[in-house]
């Protein structure tokens, strides 16, 4: 990804961030809701990208962690606790459950791991639906309050969009730091070759559990924002298909790329909305678009860019070689 000059990249980043802050100011309620949803899903997908894209552990349970976070936030804030406290609890809870879910990953890998996490996802859904003393059962929890941040009420859609965007920014910075730290390198070593990682002294056991726990904790953060965003939660959004959607976001965006989850969440949340003019066909077209994209580039959108840049670099390198060679020949 080093094909662009650094100042250009920074300028591009600043333009995108400024755009995300300024452009939605005159969006209507629904547009802001969709954009907030994008920010929330991007956080959850970023967590999964850490588990799957960087550490190489397949998880089909990210949706369950979003559910755990959402219920934690909903239950606490409706009982008068402030949202930041609820977020801390959501993180702690998802981290702990994610850690435990990581144990099967120490025993089985790849598709078997996917199936264990899939089973967990269904179990979590059953708990959300059936333990109505805690979760309200199929009736769910309504009137979830939105927080006051620095004394400013965020009841209106625009301020709450900024809450989501700000949280996305904080999480992005944390993840950016994490994947550049020795931990991130240990995660990647785990993905590339667990045996070699172990022989080089990486505690693969601990890092596998960590990859699960941190990824799940980000799912919890997303959930804790999702609850005040919709202000009403019931078990349905947190069933298996959310986990599958999140996995799709990560793969479509580009697993193992920092920006992958942002693009993946954009495709999954915004593309169906843009296709709404086709009425009943929009999800069908969305499915076809995803399949077409994956056939074209199984490494996702950023995979295309990555390949293009790599190609350009090889071309540039071979041009340099040709020049060097001809110079060598003229000297002789």
């Amino acid at each position: 990804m080093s094909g662009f000059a650094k100042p250009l990249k920074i300028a591009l980043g600043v333009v995108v961030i400024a755009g995300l802050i300024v452009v939605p100011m005159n969006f209507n309620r629904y547009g802001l809701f969709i954009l907030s949803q994008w920010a929330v899903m991007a956080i959850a997908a970023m967590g999964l990208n850490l588990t799957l894209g960087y550490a190489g552990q397949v998880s089909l349970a990210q949706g369950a962690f979003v559910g755990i976070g959402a219920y934690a936030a909903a239950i606490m804030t409706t009982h008068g606790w402030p949202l930041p406290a609820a977020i801390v609890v959501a993180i702690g809870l998802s981290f702990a459950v994610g850690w435990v879910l990581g144990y099967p990953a120490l025993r089985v890998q790849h598709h078997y791991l996917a199936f264990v996490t899939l089973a967990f996802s269904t179990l979590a859904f059953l708990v959300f639906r059936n333990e109505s003393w805690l979760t309200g059962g199929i009736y769910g929890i309504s009137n979830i309050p939105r927080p006051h941040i620095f004394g400013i009420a965020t009841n209106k859609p625009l301020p709450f969009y900024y809450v989501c965007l700000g949280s996305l920014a904080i999480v992005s910075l944390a993840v950016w730091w994490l994947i550049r730290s020795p931990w991130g390198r240990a995660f990647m070593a785990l993905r590339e070759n667990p045996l070699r990682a172990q022989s080089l002294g990486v505690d693969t056991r601990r890092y596998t559990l960590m990859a699960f726990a941190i990824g799940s904790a980000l799912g919890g953060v997303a959930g804790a924002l999702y609850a005040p965003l919709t202000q009403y939660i019931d078990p349905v959004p947190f069933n298996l298909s959310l986990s599958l959607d999140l996995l799709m976001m990560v793969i479509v965006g580009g697993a193992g790329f920092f920006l992958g989850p942002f693009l993946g969440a954009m495709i999954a949340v915004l593309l169906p909305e843009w296709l709404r003019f086709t009425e009943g066909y929009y999800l069908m077209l969305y499915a076809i678009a995803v399949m077409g994209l994956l056939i074209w580039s199984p490494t996702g959108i950023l995979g295309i860019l990555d390949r293009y840049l790599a190609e350009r670099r090889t071309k540039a390198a071979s041009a340099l070689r040709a020049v060097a060679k001809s110079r060598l020949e003229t000297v002789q």
Partner: protein
Amino acid sequence: MSNLFDLLVAGLATGAIYALVAVGFTLLWQTSQTINFAQGEFVMLPAFLMLAAMHAGAPFWLAIILGILLSMLLLGLAFKMLLVDPMMRHGVLPLAIATMALAIGIKEAVKQFFSAEASPFPSIVPTGDVSILGHAVSLQSIGVLVLAILAVFGLTALLNRTSLGHQMQAAAQNPTVARIIGVPVERMILLTFLINAFLVALASLLITPIYLAKFTSGEVLGQAAFIAAIVGGFNQVRGAIAGGLLIGVLDNLAAAYVSTQYRAAVPMLFLIAVILFRPQGLLGRAEERTV
């Protein structure tokens, strides 16, 4: 006790259908490393194809034949050529994700082009009860069980007794060596896709009269078949059969004796236990692990 007997019969009947679907699932995995997340939708679709043929005026028997042929064309041939072939060499995960998208696509297409409502579907087995050992057992359960068992026996005979079956097994176990000794591996893989399409169409024909034809009915079914395949042994046809029957019975017993709310949890817990303590499945061989 009579209750238990009824539950067992009903469980075996649904379990036999799960087994059909699970066998197809393992066949695809063995020959082409396809984890088909759309397998449930593959079962849902043929019933609608048959209904469409009947709306167009075809008699029931003709609609069944047309439905099965169309399924083999769409869910066998087209699925392999358009989606699996271009993606196979890129590994398991992107293809699995593509089948998830396919599942959404099939569901939405059925909802849009047919109906969002559940439609009744005629049964190929006469309704009514017969008395076995003093118990009234529905003819439908027996018919489903017999047909599913016949299909499974037919398939096992094909795989184990014929030269074609041996070639298919060779293509699944070691494509390179199979190619060297002259097995047309590509054609064998295509054949497994066609067999899978036939099995899901048959399953569709058997299960839809019981649960009605609805665009969402693939979700539960796909998951059950999925679990059956893993519990029995991901790389074994007879494992998938055993797994299917087991999950069918377990599901029915759990609904009666555990709680209706948590009936779905029992097969899941069973699945987790099997994966953790016997990852190759109850009847499976341990897969070779590459470093």
